[in-house]
């Protein structure tokens, strides 16, 4: 469980999850927006196409009308027809009509006289006994207007029965809608009628030839539309286009099939389409459920010869043809998203390793460093610029840590050394000083006697000198052991230097050495232990005098100077330069070590400079030496101004 938690909180995991998130987001948005846009575009395209298809279907319909008219026209053109008509040769006329019907696939045709009485017609009732006026609307129109006419007509059941009982059967709907009983069903036909005059196109009207095709249950027009427009689909064995002709709102001819495989004749169009197309006479496209499927469909009104809207012509395409496009799109996007997800995981994993491995290495290295190993392995340098920079920075940091530690170890060793020498010195001093008092007292007292030989006297003198030497060494040791305590007070350093010089000046002049002091003007007050700093200066100046030959000189100056480590830390600097013998380079390092001396035995304890070093250090300052053999030595003492003020405050508050 904990492993799982640490895994999901790892940067690596987050990286992969982020990339996954982006993949999902992009994929999801593509599906939603892209799918929607595509669907809209496809739908518009489909609607536009339906409109074109509908126009084409209407064209096929009108062509069929012209075809009927043309067929009639051809029949009337020959002289034989007119002769037979004028001579009332009924059998010949009937023969001609039958041939017309056969060749042009015409359902009904006939010839009437100028009064409307039927001369002959095709079908069972070819030469009617009953010469009653025949009220076929197309015939009536031709007689009345004495001009040829072609178009859509509505034929009542009664009329059809007279014409041909077989045709009347066709208008019976197989699944007649019960609700439609109020409206008597009738036949819808495309028909033409042509008046025949005595002299070709003039003179008295002699009769009318008429003919037409009943649309009810006809497959010719609807299948022709489908064939014309959707040839490709047909070849692929699909029947996605349907064409339908309505009488009013009832399907009378269609290649729309109901679920049990029969043509959906007798079903009605939706009220919305009826309203828009049949009643308002407008073109309309819809997406709707029709009979058994969802369709995108377009409808146009059909007007009869008198301009009355009597039916509808419609085409439709199954909507899923188009919505499938959307599903295909979604499928592709899902696949792409899936590829994206896999890529995200892989790239995230690789990237993660590339970025995080060096980082983890650095973290481990840092841990090693805090555990004490200052030379950790940070791995090979990365190729990424930023990471390489980070690695280098870490390397530098470890390097400087190492240096700092070496330095502080050095300092620690140095101060440990000083501290143990200090303790030793205190012990030694205490033990030695009492017997030394005895030695000094008794030798001095002996010397007071007048009866001593000169030789004994000089021997005693040697004892006294030796004891004085021991006393000096012990005093040095004691000074050394006492350097931890600072008695700080604000001090005018120039004045301190001057008073120190005054103490020693005579000694220098005796040796023929000039001491010059060049004090800085406006030197700030420095908080120091007066007597300790005094002994530091004294010590260094005495060393300078000792190292300088007669005629040489010692130059002392004070200045204000910033710290070499910390530019913000202001301080003062004292420089003591002599023209003495100089210090060989190999001795420079050992200069501040306790008991290191180059003076003759008996002249120096080797403690002076190490005591001075300790005192300056304790003041937060620095002491450095520059020397060149034969030219002279320069001691530089730097002391901070402000830092020590804090210490003083601490002292006051404690």
């Amino acid at each position: 469980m904990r492993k799982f938690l640490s895994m999901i909180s790892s940067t690596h995991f987050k990286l992969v999850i982020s990339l996954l998130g982006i993949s999902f987001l992009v994929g999801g948005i593509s599906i939603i927006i892209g799918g929607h846009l595509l669907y809209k575009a496809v739908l518009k395209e489909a609607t536009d196409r339906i409109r074109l298809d509908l126009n084409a279907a209407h064209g096929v319909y009108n062509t069929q009308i012209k075809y009927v008219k043309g067929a009639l026209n051809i029949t009337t053109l020959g002289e034989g027809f007119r002769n037979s008509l004028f001579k009332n040769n009924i059998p010949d006329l009937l023969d001609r009509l039958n041939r017309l019907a056969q060749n042009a696939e015409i359902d009904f045709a006939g010839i009437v006289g100028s009064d409307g009485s039927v001369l002959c017609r095709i079908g069972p009732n070819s030469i009617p006994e009953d010469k009653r006026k025949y009220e076929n609307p197309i015939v009536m129109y031709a007689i009345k207007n004495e001009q040829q006419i072609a178009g859509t007509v509505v034929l009542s059941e009664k009329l059809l029965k007279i014409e041909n009982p077989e045709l009347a059967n066709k208008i019976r709907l197989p699944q007649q809608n019960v609700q439609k009983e109020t409206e008597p069903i009738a036949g819808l036909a495309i028909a033409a009628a042509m008046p025949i005059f005595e002299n070709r196109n003039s003179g008295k009207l002699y009769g009318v030839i008429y003919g037409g095709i009943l649309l009810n249950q006809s497959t010719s027009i609807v299948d022709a539309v489908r064939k014309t427009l959707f040839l490709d689909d047909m070849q692929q064995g699909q029947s996605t286009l349907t064409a339908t002709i309505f009488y009013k709102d009832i399907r009378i001819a269609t290649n729309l099939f109901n679920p049990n495989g029969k043509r959906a004749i007798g079903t009605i169009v939706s009220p919305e389409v009826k309203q828009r197309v049949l009643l308002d006479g407008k073109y309309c496209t819809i997406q709707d459920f029709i009979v058994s499927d969802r369709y995108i469909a377009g409808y146009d009104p059909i007007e009869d010869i008198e301009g009355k809207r009597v039916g509808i012509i419609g085409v439709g395409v199954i909507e899923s043809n188009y919505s499938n496009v959307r599903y295909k799109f979604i499928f592709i996007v899902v696949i792409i998203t899936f590829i994206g997800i896999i890529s995200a995981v892989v790239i995230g994993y690789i990237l993660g390793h590339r970025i995080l491995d060096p980082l983890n290495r650095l973290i481990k290295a840092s841990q090693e460093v805090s555990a004490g190993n200052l030379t950790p392995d940070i791995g090979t340098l990365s190729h990424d610029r930023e990471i390489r920079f980070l690695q280098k920075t870490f390397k530098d940091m470890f390097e400087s840590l190492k240096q700092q530690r070496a330095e502080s170890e050095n300092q620690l060793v140095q101060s440990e050394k000083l501290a143990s020498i200090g303790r030793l010195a205190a012990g030694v001093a205490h033990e030695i000083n009492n017997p030394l008092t005895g030695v000094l007292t008794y030798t001095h007292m002996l010397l007071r006697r007048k009866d001593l030989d000169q030789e004994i006297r000089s021997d005693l003198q040697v004892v006294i000198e030796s004891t004085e030497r021991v006393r000096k060494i012990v005093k040095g040791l004691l000074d050394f052991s006492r350097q931890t305590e600072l008695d700080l007070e604000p001090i005018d350093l120039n004045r301190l230097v001057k008073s120190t010089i005054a103490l020693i000046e005579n000694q220098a002049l005796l040796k023929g050495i000039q001491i010059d002091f060049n004090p800085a003007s406006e030197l700030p007050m420095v908080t120091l232990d007066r007597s300790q700093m005094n002994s530091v200066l004294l010590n260094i100046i005495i060393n300078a005098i000792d190292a300088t030959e007669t005629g040489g000189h010692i130059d002392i100056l004070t200045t204000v100077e910033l710290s070499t480590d910390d530019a913000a830390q202001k301080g003062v600097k004292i420089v003591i330069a002599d023209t003495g013998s100089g210090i060989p380079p190999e001795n420079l390092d050992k200069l501040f070590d306790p008991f290191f001396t180059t003076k003759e035995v008996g002249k120096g304890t080797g403690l002076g400079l190490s005591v001075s070093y300790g005192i300056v250090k304790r003041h937060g300052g620095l002491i450095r030496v520059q020397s060149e053999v034969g030219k002279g030595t320069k001691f530089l003492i730097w002391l901070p101004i402000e830092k020590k003020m804090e210490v003083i405050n601490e002292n006051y508050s404690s």
Partner: protein
Amino acid sequence: MKIIVVDDEKIVLDSCRKVLTSEGFDVEIISSSDEALKKLKIEEPVLLIIDVKMPGHDGIYLLKEVRKITKSLPVIVMSGYHTKETINESTRFGASIFLYKPFTPEELIAAIYKVIKKEENK
């Protein structure tokens, strides 16, 4: 003129007695603070010389106790090893001179006369 010297080191006591006797002083040497206090209740020396570091009660303790008895008795404090505090304490409780060990007879005598002269000048 009696001078009392207090130190746990015999060599120091002997040295002091030798020097002071030669100078004509009456010297009494005592090797512990407690003994010195007893002695001071019966004697009135002109000067007291005490060592700081002694086993048992040290010289500073002795100095404080002495000051309970007399404010005017001049005292020289001597030590072979001292800190700033011991010097400060000594001064605070009226020691006239702090004498660093080892010292020569001349230094001891000079210190004594300095103190006695101070007393006479008062």
